[in-house]
C-alpha cells in the first residue's frame, strides 16, 4: 500500500538510499488497544451512574443551596459571644502566660483545652498544629527510613526489601481510614488525627526520600568512600547535601497536603476545622458553613504561599 504522503519517485532522481527500512506497522494493535480503551471507559461511565439529565434539572437546587450559603455568616468568627470567654477572667489573665490564682488558673486551663478548640479560630489553629506536628514527626521517622529503603544506602538487601514492603503496604491505607482506626484506638480529637497524618506522611515521605537517595550522583559517594570515610560520614558528606533540596521541598509539599487532610479528618471526629464545618452543614446553618469554608480556603492559600516562599529561600 502506498500512502498519498509518500513522495513518488521518478526516473530523473538518482535513488541514493536504495532499499529503505520501513517503520514497523502496528495498526491492528493500535486499533485493538483503542477498542479496549473505549470499552473500559464505557464500563466505568455505566458504573458511575452518570445521569446528566438529573444534573441539569438539579441546577436550580444547586443555585438555591449556594443562595442559602450567601452571604457567609461570620458571627461565629467575629462575635465575642461565640468564644465563651470566662467572665471572671480579664483578657490579660486569659491570654498572657502569667501566674494567676489557682481557681482562675483552672478556669483558664479549661477554656484553652475545651472551649477554644470548639471555636472557628481555635479549630483553625488546631488544624495547623495537627498538620505541623504530623508532618514534623513523619519527617523525623521517614528520614532514616528513606536511607534504609534506598538500594544504594541500605545496609542489607533484606532491610531494603523489608522497608520497601512495609512502606508500600502502609501507603495504600488512605489517611481517612487511618483516622477511623486511631479515633477508635485513642478516642475523638486532634491526637487521633495527628497520628493518622503522621503514619500516612511517614510512608509517603519515606518513599519519596528513598527515591531521591537513589538518584544521587554515585561518583561523589565513591570519592568520599575513597578517603577512608565510614558509613555515617559518607551519608553526611556525599548523600545528605545532594538530597537536602528534595527533603525540604517534599516536606513542605506534604505540609500543604496535610493542612487539607487535617481539615477533612474533622469529618470523622479526628480534630480540626472539618468537625465544625460538618456540624454547620448537618444543622442546616449554611451561611455559617460557608464562612468556615472561606476561612479554610484562606488558610490553605496562606500555607501554600508561605511554603512556596520558604522553598524559594532554601532550595
Amino acid at each position, binding site marked *: 500500500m502506498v500512502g498519498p504522503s509518500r513522495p513518488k519517485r521518478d526516473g530523473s532522481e538518482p535513488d541514493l538510499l536504495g532499499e529503505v527500512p520501513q517503520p514497523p506497522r502496528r495498526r491492528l494493535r493500535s486499533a485493538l488497544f483503542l477498542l479496549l480503551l473505549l470499552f473500559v471507559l464505557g464500563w466505568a461511565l455505566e458504573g458511575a451512574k452518570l445521569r446528566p439529565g438529573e444534573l441539569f434539572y438539579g441546577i436550580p437546587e444547586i443555585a438555591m443551596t449556594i443562595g442559602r450559603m450567601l452571604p457567609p455568616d461570620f458571627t461565629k468568627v467575629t462575635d465575642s459571644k461565640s468564644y465563651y470567654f470566662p467572665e471572671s477572667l480579664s483578657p490579660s489573665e486569659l491570654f498572657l502566660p502569667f501566674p494567676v490564682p489557682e481557681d482562675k488558673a483552672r478556669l483558664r486551663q479549661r477554656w484553652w483545652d475545651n472551649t477554644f478548640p470548639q471555636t472557628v479560630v481555635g479549630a483553625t489553629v488546631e488544624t495547623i498544629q495537627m498538620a505541623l506536628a504530623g508532618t514534623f514527626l513523619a519527617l523525623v521517622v521517614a528520614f532514616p527510613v528513606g536511607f534504609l529503603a534506598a538500594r544504594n544506602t541500605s545496609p542489607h538487601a533484606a532491610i531494603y526489601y523489608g522497608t520497601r514492603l512495609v512502606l508500600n503496604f502502609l501507603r495504600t491505607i488512605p489517611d481517612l481510614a487511618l483516622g477511623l482506626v486511631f479515633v477508635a484506638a485513642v478516642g475523638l480529637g486532634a491526637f487521633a488525627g495527628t497520628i493518622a497524618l503522621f503514619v500516612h506522611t511517614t510512608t509517603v515521605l519515606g518513599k519519596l526520600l528513598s527515591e531521591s537517595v537513589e538518584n544521587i550522583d554515585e561518583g561523589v559517594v565513591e570519592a568520599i568512600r575513597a578517603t577512608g570515610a565510614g558509613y555515617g560520614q559518607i551519608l*553526611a558528606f556525599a548523600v545528605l547535601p545532594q538530597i537536602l533540596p528534595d527533603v525540604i521541598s517534599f516536606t513542605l509539599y506534604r505540609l500543604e497536603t496535610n493542612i487539607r487532610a487535617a481539615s477533612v479528618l474533622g469529618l470523622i471526629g479526628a480534630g480540626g476545622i472539618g468537625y465544625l464545618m460538618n456540624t454547620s452543614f448537618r444543622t442546616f446553618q449554611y451561611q455559617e458553613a460557608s464562612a468556615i469554608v472561606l476561612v479554610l480556603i484562606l488558610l490553605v492559600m496562606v500555607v501554600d504561599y508561605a511554603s512556596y516562599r520558604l522553598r524559594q529561600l532554601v532550595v
Partner: protein
Amino acid sequence: MTILEVKELRKSYGPPARVLRGVNLTVEQGEFLGIIGMSGAGKSTLLRCINRLIEPTSGEILIPRSVFISDADGLRVDVCKLGLGGLRLLRRRVGMIFQQFNIVKRLSVIDNVLAGGLGYQPTWRSCLRFFSPTERRHALLNLKRVGLLDHAYKRADELSGGEQQRVAIARVLMQNPAIILADEPVSNLDPKLSRAVLDILKKICIEDGITALVSLHTLDLTRQYADRILGLREGRVYFDAPTLAWSEEMVERIYEGSGSETAR
C-alpha cells in the same frame, strides 16, 4: 622502595566480562606512572581495585604496612585480604582523583576539601560537619597549594571545571596520601586546563614524594608527565617501559586491533 606490587590481578563481572586478565605491576616510591589504553582496556578497574572501590576477583596487591600503620615494620600486606577497619586505614593514605571530579557541588569549596580528612576524624563529630581550627587551617593551606585560596568559601558549583578538579586535588592532599590514583583526571578539560591541572599534580607529587598512578587519554600528556608508561590492552599489561623507551610502534599496538577507536 617498592610501594606497590600487583600480582596476577583479575577482575571479571561474570565469565564473559573479564576486565582484568592477570595484571602484574611494580611501582617504586615517588614514581609518576602513566597508564594508557583504549576504553575498556581496564584502566579504571585496575585503579579502583588498588583501593578496593572494586573488589578484585583474584590476585594480590601488596603494599608495605608502614605506609598506613605508623608503628609497623616493613612487611607487606595484601590489600585484598584487609578487613573493613584495615581498608579504611589504607584508604586514608591512598587518594583518588576522578574524571568527573566528584566533589559535592552544593557544599562550599572548603567543606569539600575538609571531606578529604574524614578518615582521620571521629564519626560523630564530622557527621555534624564540625571541624577544628587546625583542620580548617590545614584545608586552607592545601587550597593555597592548588591556587584556590580566594575561592574557599564559594559554593563548589560556582567554580569552573579546571578549578573543581583542583579542589579535588586539595581534598586528596587532606589525606596526606602516600599514593594518588587518578582516573582520567583531565578527560573533561580542554588541553590548556589539562596542563594546568597536571602541572599542579606533578609538582605536588614531587614536593611531597607521593607516588602517582595516572590514567590519561592522550599520549602527548602522558609522555610529558609520566616517568614510566604502562600500556594496557584487553585487561593485560601489554607494555611497561620508561617514557623515553616508548616507540611509535608500541603505541600503535596498544591502540590497534579489535576496536574501531583510533589512537589520539
